[in-house]
């Protein structure tokens, strides 16, 4: 089926409506209530060496719990000494003192002139602290009032990340929704991806020529999601290879990827009913060293002369070295990476390139399985969200800047808050 325009917009508006409700709810939740306020009146000049010009201490020192942490930080806020504003002031900085319980004060930090806040991340939950801050001159210091005793609190939910949660929910929800829709048997349309259409031909060519297929899964370990994408594609490719009775060779730069790669290929061969044709020698660990690996793979390419080379995963500077060597031995090359910096080199030197998102979509596309295809459609909802938000943001900013329309500025501020990271 095709994606009707009407449905796109109704979907988008439904999402925005839901977003709007959440925004209101969260806005209420996030509104600050009362903070623990330091008591006592403002400055009391500390008695000090009367021969020296005395400096005004800082004022309005407040210690408050740092919100949304595991109870391991306290935040200090104050108004700098009035002397700090003078052109030739004698202030050389501030020193922060902390008292744990009824203990002795200990200096925990020194700050440059002009500072007005400090985050103490060396506190323990359930302990009680109070603070004061001294204004420093060359020879003396002028302490402020002490804050009320406070202990850091643990919060169970980070409300600052409410919008992040909502955006995650919206996109994940869309993906899961279309997965279930597809599971119920609804046929979904997915456009052709050239690089993936070519895989069968490329493997077939290797069979005809009697040369191996070389599969390079990038140089990162399993903690990079691009490596996982490469391995999922390997699952499909090795199945085709098993069916065609071609040879595959996969040199890797990480021991874990070797283990996982063997697991994948072995299962594919089993599924193809040819478990005997599988051998551990198909996947070999070379070295973790980036260019040592490249040197070895280059050697393999010129000696084995693979008919087809897959370069899928996380690539860095080696992308072009590998792709050019592969090209020089006349291999068909299918590349894909989510490293924008390396894409130009693959585009230049390979026959087909999976650009960014296409790498992650590849395995779902190749599987042809309805649930997997459904997840691709879910991704597109994320794109609709991005396009709508961008358009609204651009229009709001344009009007707010050109004609100073306040209402537009409000929309923009809201959007910027929702789409901010913290």
């Amino acid at each position, binding site marked *: 089926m095709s994606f009707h325009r009407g449905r796109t917009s109704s979907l988008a508006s439904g999402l925005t409506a839901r977003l709007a409700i959440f925004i209101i709810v969260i806005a209420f939740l996030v509104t600050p209530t009362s903070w623990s306020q330091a008591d006592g009146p403002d400055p009391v000049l500390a008695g000090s060496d009367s021969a020296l010009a005395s400096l005004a201490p800082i004022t309005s020192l407040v210690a408050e719990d740092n919100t949304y942490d595991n109870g391991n930080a306290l935040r200090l806020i104050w108004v700098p000494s009035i002397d700090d504003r003078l*052109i*030739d*002031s004698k*202030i*050389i900085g501030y020193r922060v003192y902390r008292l744990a319980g009824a203990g002795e004060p200990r200096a925990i930090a020194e*700050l*440059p*002139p*002009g*500072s007005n806040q400090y985050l103490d991340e060396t506190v323990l939950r359930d302990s009680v602290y109070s603070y004061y801050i001294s204004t420093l001159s060359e020879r003396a210091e002028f302490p402020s009032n002490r804050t009320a005793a406070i202990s850091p609190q643990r919060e169970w939910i980070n409300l600052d990340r409410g919008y992040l949660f909502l955006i995650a929910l919206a996109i994940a929800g869309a993906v899961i929704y279309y997965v279930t829709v597809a599971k119920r048997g609804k046929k979904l349309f997915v456009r052709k991806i050239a690089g993936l259409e070519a895989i069968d031909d490329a493997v077939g060519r290797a069979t005809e020529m009697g040369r191996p297929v070389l599969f390079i899964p990038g140089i990162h370990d399993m903690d990079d999601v691009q490596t996982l994408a490469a391995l999922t594609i390997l699952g499909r490719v090795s199945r085709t290879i098993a069916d065609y009775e071609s040879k595959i060779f996969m040199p890797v730069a990480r021991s874990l990827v070797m283990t996982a790669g063997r697991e994948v290929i072995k299962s594919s061969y089993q599924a193809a009913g040819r478990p005997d044709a599988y051998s551990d020698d198909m996947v070999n660990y070379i070295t973790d060293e980036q260019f040592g690996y490249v040197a070895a793979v280059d050697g393999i390419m010129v000696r084995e002369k693979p008919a087809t080379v897959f370069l899928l995963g996380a690539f860095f500077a080696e992308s072009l070295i590998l792709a050019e060597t592969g090209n*020089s031995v006349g291999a068909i090359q299918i590349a894909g990476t989510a490293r924008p910096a390396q894409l130009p080199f693959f585009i230049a030197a390979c026959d087909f390139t999976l650009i960014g998102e296409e790498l992650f979509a590849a395995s779902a596309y190749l599987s042809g399985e309805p649930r997997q295809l459904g997840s691709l459609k879910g991704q597109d909802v994320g794109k609709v969200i991005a396009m709508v938000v961008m358009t609204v943001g651009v229009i709001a900013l344009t009007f707010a800047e050109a004609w100073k329309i306040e209402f537009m500025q409000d929309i923009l501020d809201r959007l910027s808050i929702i789409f901010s990271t913290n």
Partner: protein
Amino acid sequence: MPNVGVLVPLVAIFGGLIWLLVRAIRGREVERRVIFMFIFVAVATPILFPITFQEHATPVVKNLFDRIENLPSGSTILMSFDFDPAMAPEVQPMANALSRHCLAREHKIVFMCLWATGQSLLNTTLEYVIRPDFPHLVDGVDFVNVGYKAGNEGVLNVIVSDFKKMFPTDVNGVPLDGVEIFDKVGSCKDFDLILTVGGGRPGPKEWVLFVGDPADVPIGAGVAAVVAPQLYPYYPRQVIGILGGIKGAAEYESELVKTHPRFENMEKPGLRMMGPQTLAHVVILAFIVIGNIAFFRGRRGKKTE
């Protein structure tokens, strides 16, 4: 003056390219190894026999050069070394060229660093550039080195309103109150120009935000090539000129030699390092042209067959 050692490889490169061009017009492709050889010769020749190309200053560089050139003699300029040894090959040539230019125009320079690692690199410039080139200039009279102070943006926050509060003495402990340059300088507002050389953080961006904008002082920046594009939005209002990477340094050196012939024989690392770059770029551009000619001739050949 170019000697035989330079001429032979240059003739080989350009002769070879013309030969390949003729072949391309006949529809013939070039083998990879031939390209490799051209690149190697193009890079190795200028290393063995320094070849420098006359660089024309682009407006972003020229603007800063003209500002320093046109300030009345005796203006005070603040120059900050905000980089580390890793960045030094790219940006130290700029720092050297800028200091030479300022001192040749008889401006007074106040040197400082926001990076602790900048101190030793600043000393290199003082020791190997200023002392030999301007032996008559006196530390503390014609230029002052106030050294490094910790605090990153905090330092900028202070010096924008009071310079001596952050830097009461120079690096040798001499109180700035006795230094003549500082008779006229109370804060950053009193400098006629601020130059920052670096590219990390704190760097030019912080100088613009914390000093340039609030105090309304013109800022000139020398930065590593990768950072340069991020700085263009500030040009030409907040940053009056940008030297980006080795190419920026080379353009500045070129301009400097043009207007101040006394520097004809100075070290020109920017220009020297641009030699292999320029030749290699020219070779690559030539191969793109040759490739396209071969492609179109080859296609036409196929059609007529």
